[in-house]
């Protein structure tokens, strides 16, 4: 094959794979903004010609979906905060100290990955009912944090490892304590990475279905709500819910796209 041909073939492949990712999302958006009419429309349009203010208004007026979205946002935000509060110090400890038990601690962290969420969610339903945490965003956030904390810990550990300890030591020489040294020297350097890690914690909670469904009844997260109305509610409501689920994730992936490897490369260790 000549190089020109080869380049053409390469770009065809790239274009096909981009379309393969994007076209299904586009079609879902058509369904979501099409309003009630699009559900029974046949044959379906491939262009957004039927869009009007009415149909977009109908999308914005679907009450149950937005209420559930708000619960999801609360749970995901709390999950993010928990992941940072617990993950940043633990990551710092793993990166900067050699201590007995570090190995078993790493093992505990890695173990959490191999277990299905179902195995945690089932007994926690009972405990949460007794503790009054059942059916609250905080309860959902707690369980999601079990998945997010290990991840945040490993990401932070590798971030801090990438920041030379000499910088910190210099700060101590100039009169910083360990804590202020961390705050003024290490944290600013690690901040973009920590931000990416927290975005991942948010998306992880935002997307989780099983635990959220088992732990809520009336204050459902968006995923739990959509799962519970799968066989009942009209299709355009389901499409709208699906689209609301997808949009933030797409934006988040865009924000952290340069750090995806740093995040998932960690799996290689």
């Amino acid at each position: 094959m000549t190089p020109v041909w080869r380049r053409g073939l390469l770009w065809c492949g790239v274009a096909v794979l981009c379309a393969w990712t994007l076209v299904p999302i586009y079609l879902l958006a058509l369904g979501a903004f099409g309003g009630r009419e699009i559900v029974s429309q046949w044959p379906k349009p491939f262009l957004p010609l039927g869009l009007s203010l009415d149909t977009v208004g109908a999308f914005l007026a679907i009450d149950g979906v937005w209420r559930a979205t708000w619960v999801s946002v609360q749970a995901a935000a709390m999950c993010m905060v928990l992941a940072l509060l617990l993950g940043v110090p633990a990551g710092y400890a793993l990166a900067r100290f050699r201590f007995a038990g570090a190995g078993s601690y790493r093992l505990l962290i890695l173990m959490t990955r191999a277990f299905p969420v179902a195995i945690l969610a089932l007994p926690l339903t009972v405990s949460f009912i007794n503790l009054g945490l059942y059916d609250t965003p905080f309860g959902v956030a707690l369980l999601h944090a079990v998945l997010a904390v290990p991840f945040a810990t490993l990401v932070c550990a590798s971030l801090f490892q990438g920041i030379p300890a000499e910088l910190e030591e210099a700060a101590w020489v100039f009169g910083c304590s360990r804590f202020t040294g961390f705050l003024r020297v290490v944290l600013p350097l690690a901040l973009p990475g920590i931000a990416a890690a927290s975005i991942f914690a948010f998306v992880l909670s935002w997307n989780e279905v099983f635990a959220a469904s088992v732990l809520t009844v009336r204050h459902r997260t968006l995923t739990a709500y959509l799962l519970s109305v799968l066989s009942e509610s009209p299709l355009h409501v389901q499409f709208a819910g699906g689209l609301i689920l997808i949009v933030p994730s797409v934006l988040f992936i865009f924000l952290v796209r340069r750090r995806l490897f740093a995040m998932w490369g960690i799996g290689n260790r």
Partner: protein
Amino acid sequence: MRRAGALPYLLILPSVLFLGVLFVVPLVQTALLAFQEGGTWSLGNWHRMADDLNFQDAVVNTFSVVLIVVPLQCTLALGMTMMLRHVQRGRDIILWVWSIPLGISDLAAGLVWLAILTDQGWLNTLLFKLGLISGPQAWLTYETPMVLLAGIIVAELWRATAIVFVILLAGVQLLPKEYEEAAEVFGASPWQRFWRVTLPLLRPSLQTALILRTVLAFEMFAMALALGGRNFPVLVSEAFNWQYGNQDYGVAASYAVLVMAISIAATLIYLVALRVPAEQRA
């Protein structure tokens, strides 16, 4: 690295307590729940699980999806990785587009493909315009199990290839270029370079991707519910139904333990089958 008494322990203490209470304790509780009935040791839950009508279907469906999807995803992801190596312009944006599914849950992916595959959906519209069908046609019912399986496989392929791709691309970027250049100097064709040089060097990444992907594939359930409803039971959706519909925590726990056992077995198989030589470990 330095030694500093109690400080590291204080730093990890909150997360240890947290994971102890919310991870280790529930794990043990579920394991106990699965093997107990009315406060005594029993295999009753397991019998009820195995005797249930859906059990066999759930096992067959789950394994069909995993065994078909995971190899396809690895092939596709390898192809994507190799393609992106040759792209200079627009690399950033392509990388973003290809990684978008990373942030999409199996429920959302199920809804996306429901919009396409439903009776009056876009697939049927396309087939209609091509003159292949005469009107709306139902694909996602128990009468067309092969099409339903194919739909779920396509949806899984769409959603979860990105994670394999990102792990493999991260691995490829760590490979020293010298090996391939040396192979080229000695006259290896691009195909030979891929099979004899790049692929073997990628083994650690491939192993990670396979383990992560397989464990997650066994957990898939919302997509099966969205596309197949009751017609496509999988192991985790059965756990969900027993817990949620039948309020039978014991059988649900048995399902959860079964999924866990399968995940661990799969991980061990990969660890042995794709053993990474010590000098290649990062």
